[in-house]
C-alpha cells in the first residue's frame, strides 16, 4: 500500500500516525508540506530514519524544490509526478490529512 502525507511533521501528527498504521514494507510518499520531514539535519531526522527502516520513503521532487529542501535524510528517494503515478499503479493508496 502507498501512504501519502502532505503536512509538516513539526506542526501536525499526520506522518507519525501514518507511520504507525503503515505495514512494514509499504510505501510512504511525502508531498506538499510533508516534504519538510525529509530535510536532513532537522529535529525530525531521527524519527524519519526509523520510518525509513520500516517503509520505502519517497519525497515529491517538485515540492522539495518549491520549499528549498535540498539535502535529504539518507534513504529517502525522490520522485517526479510521473513517479507518483507509478507508485499509485503499484498499489492502493491512502491519504493522511
Amino acid at each position, binding site marked *: 500500500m502507498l501512504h501519502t502525507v*502532505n503536512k509538516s511533521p513539526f506542526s501536525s501528527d499526520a506522518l507519525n500516525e501514518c507511520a504507525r498504521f503503515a505495514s512494514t514494507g509499504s510505501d510512504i510518499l511525502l508531498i506538499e508540506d510533508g516534504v519538510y520531514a525529509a530535510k536532513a539535519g532537522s529535529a525530525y531526522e531521527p524519527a524519519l530514519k526509523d520510518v525509513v527502516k520500516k517503509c520505502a520513503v519517497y519525497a515529491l521532487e517538485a515540492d522539495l524544490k518549491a520549499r528549498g529542501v535540498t539535502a535529504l535524510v539518507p534513504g529517502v528517494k525522490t520522485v517526479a509526478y510521473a513517479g507518483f503515478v507509478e507508485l499509485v499503479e503499484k498499489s492502493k493508496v491512502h491519504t493522511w490529512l
Partner: protein
Amino acid sequence: MKFAVQVLEGPYNNQASDTAYNFIKAALERGHQIVRVFFYHNGVLNVNNLAEPPRDDRNVYARWTELGRDKGIDIVACIAASKRRGIKDGHIIEGTRISGLGQLTDMAIEADRLITFG
C-alpha cells in the same frame, strides 16, 4: 488503469488542487483513465465561476475547465457540500457539474485506485 480522484480543499487556500491537477496530468500522460474528479468539503469551491484569480499566478479554475470541458473528464462537486458553501448551478465553471454523494460511491467502486487530495 482507472483512477478516481477526490479533492477536499479549496483552490489557492491549499495546495491540494494544484497537486491533484499535476497528478492527473501525469496519470493521463501515462495512459490512465480518470473516471471522475469528485469535490467534497471545501473542495467544491474549485468549480466556482465567479473567481478572478491574479493574472500573474496560475488559474486553478481554468485548469479544471481544461480537464472537464476540453479533455472530457467528469468533474463533480458534491451537492450537499456545495449548498452549505454557496456553490450553485449557473455559477459553476464549464465542464463541471453538481451532483450527489452517489457519484463518489460509484467511482470508489468502479475505479482501480481512489486517491484523495486534501
